[in-house]
């Protein structure tokens, strides 16, 4: 540290330019690593997925209604339906609650309440997902059973509730950013016309921030789709299609979303070549879905930022 003081920075000694260039290249390499990660994810997943589709036809994979490794059935539909089920229930909890929390934080909360509630919600986002899974399995399920719901030990409902609670902070934090970005002049204009606080919140702020709110929805749902540990711990390992004849039974029974299926295949003692490779095909499907959702969310979020800056 002390050497810098006697360094004469007015002269440019030989080699300094070269050194500067080396630093630039090294730093550039660091930054490019992220591209390398993305490319290797795509290449690796795609390579094994292609192998997989050499053994099992894509038609069978994307239209099959059974996923049973032991019998060599690789239909992805039950896994997708499991993922959709979890995501929908989680969305029912997280989206309204998250937006209402964002409205409260952005429009109603005092400076003091905000300074406590906002970090507290961020803490929720930092709790490991395996802990949420254990909450669902060990505490929420017995509680709901005690309320009289006919739940199995491993069930969709309590896992989905925990997924929903887990993504609430994401919705509320991003939506609140969008609401805070709404210029005060819009609020003042509405107040000037005799609007109440309720009317300003629902009639002015939410519509003005709608693209930001929407982008937070997409991001949160993409998180719910990719959520692994909660569903692995609390939802069991039987995959099944959504039963439309008896909709409620879907909640009471266990299910196996795509993420959980990948973990199960990997953890299985004996697994066939096709079974192992199917993991990559599911992974690729998952990656593509979440990547597109994130991309869309960023696009929408970027648009609302442009509008108000």
């Amino acid at each position, binding site marked *: 540290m002390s*050497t*810098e003081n006697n*360094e004469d*920075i007015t002269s*440019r*000694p030989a*080699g300094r330019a*070269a050194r*500067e260039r080396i630093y*630039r290249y090294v*730093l*550039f390499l660091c*930054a490019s*690593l*992220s*591209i390398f*990660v*993305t490319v290797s*994810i795509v290449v*690796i997943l795609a390579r094994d997925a292609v192998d997989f589709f050499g053994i099992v036809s894509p038609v069978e994979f994307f239209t099959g209604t059974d996923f049973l490794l032991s019998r060599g059935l690789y239909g992805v539909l039950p896994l997708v339906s499991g993922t959709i089920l979890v995501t929908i229930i989680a969305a029912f909890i997280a989206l309204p*609650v998250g937006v*209402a*929390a964002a409205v*409260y934080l952005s429009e*109603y909360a005092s400076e003091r309440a905000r300074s406590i509630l906002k970090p507290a*919600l961020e*803490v*929720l986002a*930092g*709790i*490991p*997902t*395996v*802990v949420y899974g*254990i*909450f669902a399995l*060990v*505490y929420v399920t017995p509680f709901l059973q005690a309320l009289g719901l006919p739940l199995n030990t491993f069930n969709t409902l309590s896992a989905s509730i925990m997924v929903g*609670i887990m993504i609430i*902070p994401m919705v509320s934090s991003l939506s609140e950013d969008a609401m805070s970005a709404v210029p005060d002049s819009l609020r003042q204009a509405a107040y000037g*016309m*005799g*609007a*109440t606080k309720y*009317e300003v919140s629902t009639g002015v702020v939410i519509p003005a921030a709608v693209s930001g709110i929407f982008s937070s929805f997409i991001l949160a749902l993409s998180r719910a789709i*990719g*959520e*692994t*540990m909660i569903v*692995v*711990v609390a939802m069991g390992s039987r995959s099944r299609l959504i039963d439309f004849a008896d909709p409620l039974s879907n909640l009471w029974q266990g299910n196996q979303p795509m993420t959980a299926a*990948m*973990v199960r295949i*990997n953890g299985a003692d004996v697994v066939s070549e096709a079974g192992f490779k199917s993991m*990559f095909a599911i992974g690729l499907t*998952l990656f593509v879905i*979440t*990547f597109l*959702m*994130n991309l869309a969310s960023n696009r929408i979020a970027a648009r609302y930022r442009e509008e108000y800056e």
Partner: protein
Amino acid sequence: MAAPEQDTGFGTGTSGVSRIRGTAFEAVCLAATSFALVTVLVLLLFVAADAFRPLSADPGWHLVYFLTLVVPVLGLAVYYYRLDAPAGEVAYSTTGIPVVGLLVAGGMLVVIVELISVIELFALTLATAVSAGVIVAHGRVRPQAALERLGVIVLAPTVAVFGLPPAEFNTVFNWLTTQLGLGPVLQTRITSLRELVMMVPVLPADWLLLLITLTVPVAGLFGLFMGRRRDSRRDGLALLGGTVVLAAAGFVLGPLVGIGAEAWILATSFTVPPLAFYVEGVVRREEGTAGLVFPVVAVVGVLLGAVLVRQLGFAAPDPWLDVGFLLSPTSRTPADAGIYPALVGSVMMMVVIIVATFPVGVGAAIYLEEYAPSTGLVGKFVTLIEINIGNLAGVPSVVYGLLALALFIRFINMPTGSVIVGALAVGLLILPIVIISAQEAIRAVPDSHRQASYGMGATKWQTTRNVVLPQAMPGILTGTILALGRAIGETAPLLMVGLAASVRLAPNGFFDLGAAMPRQIFSWSTELEPAFRHGVLAAGVVTLLAVLLLMNGTAIVIRNKYQRDS
């Protein structure tokens, strides 16, 4: 211009109705905000109750500790909160510093017991110190030779620590040439300073080596810092001397207290210097000195409570989460199960993750914020990188596990389930988070400071290193610690790379079969026995959350301090 009588759609209802509606709406929004918080809080209380089993204690036990510990501590807290806010902060810091210091010391103790012997540590430290000395000396002797210094910066540590070429490189190279039919080609190499030290036949006892390798540098650093801050070399030397004497006393006192000389030396090395420095500052500033009472009251309360409970014969609670749980391996019988190997595994993974992600993440952030052009072909590429990093942050963790499985285990043949593979999988996962938070910290450095540095003729790298990075460092550290908090709880990637479900012995090296806290917790969650579900599992969850809380707490303290200073 709208005519005043035109219906605007606002405020047309009677004011009474709209007030009720407004109040109801506010209440609903508040309920929504608290919903998740309250739910999780209740669940946490359940877990804590399962882990600590407070009801298994005698009511008298609770009463004693309530009177000796809780009442005085709460009383002081209320006093600080109401009347003396600076003292509250002093109380918080003087209690927190020894706790963090002891945890660091505990971590070091685990490293010494499990990973590298004291002699190895000594050799490593000596080699590092010598190479640092060579680099500094080169800077003094030839301050102008910038490119040459880059060579010295790379070569000196390599020769001192690894030798030239490193032994592992020789092994691999000779293996390759033997495979090609050339026989072992590389016969000679420069032996590293580290290896030379290890060969010395007579070395002082472990506790003395530890004193030299850890206490002296740590206390020396704090002494140097203190000497600079207070502008008095004597204070710094006093700090150094005091710490060394206190630590050396461990040779006698350690065994007396029953913790061994090494543990004593580690504990004093990491708690005494920072605490002495902080307390001296508080006394000197004469602000919030009342806060110094707090840790004393807490310690006295605990001791007094312990004595009273023993005298009165009240039964203590029998918690699942106790010292035995933290220090023993897992077991089929719930009462014997512990988390120690997993804890060690997690700490080792953290080390790899820090080494692997921090330099790369900060480097990437520096490039994107300071160097990256915004136009031309490179500019387009940089935009792509930025978008890509944002998207990578949202990729499901299980996909990173799949990537690590294919890349590290199947492609470059690293051992399945080893500490290093697990750490790299999680490292890739948090890399985008580290980059994004470092970018934000660097962006917050005012441009005028950069311009001033350029105006004095500094180059881009000099500006970055001497102006931007020091200012952005607290922000970067905060972001990194938060990202590490995310890393320590990640489970799915560990499952994918096949980390062991339960390990009896803690991993000895980075290529050993590893265990990790979340992985261990997951395998307990598959046990059906209630003693596991409501006992061992809860204790594991509380341990994990406590580590997490500690990390996040540190991050928040750094952030608050930084925000106040700037």
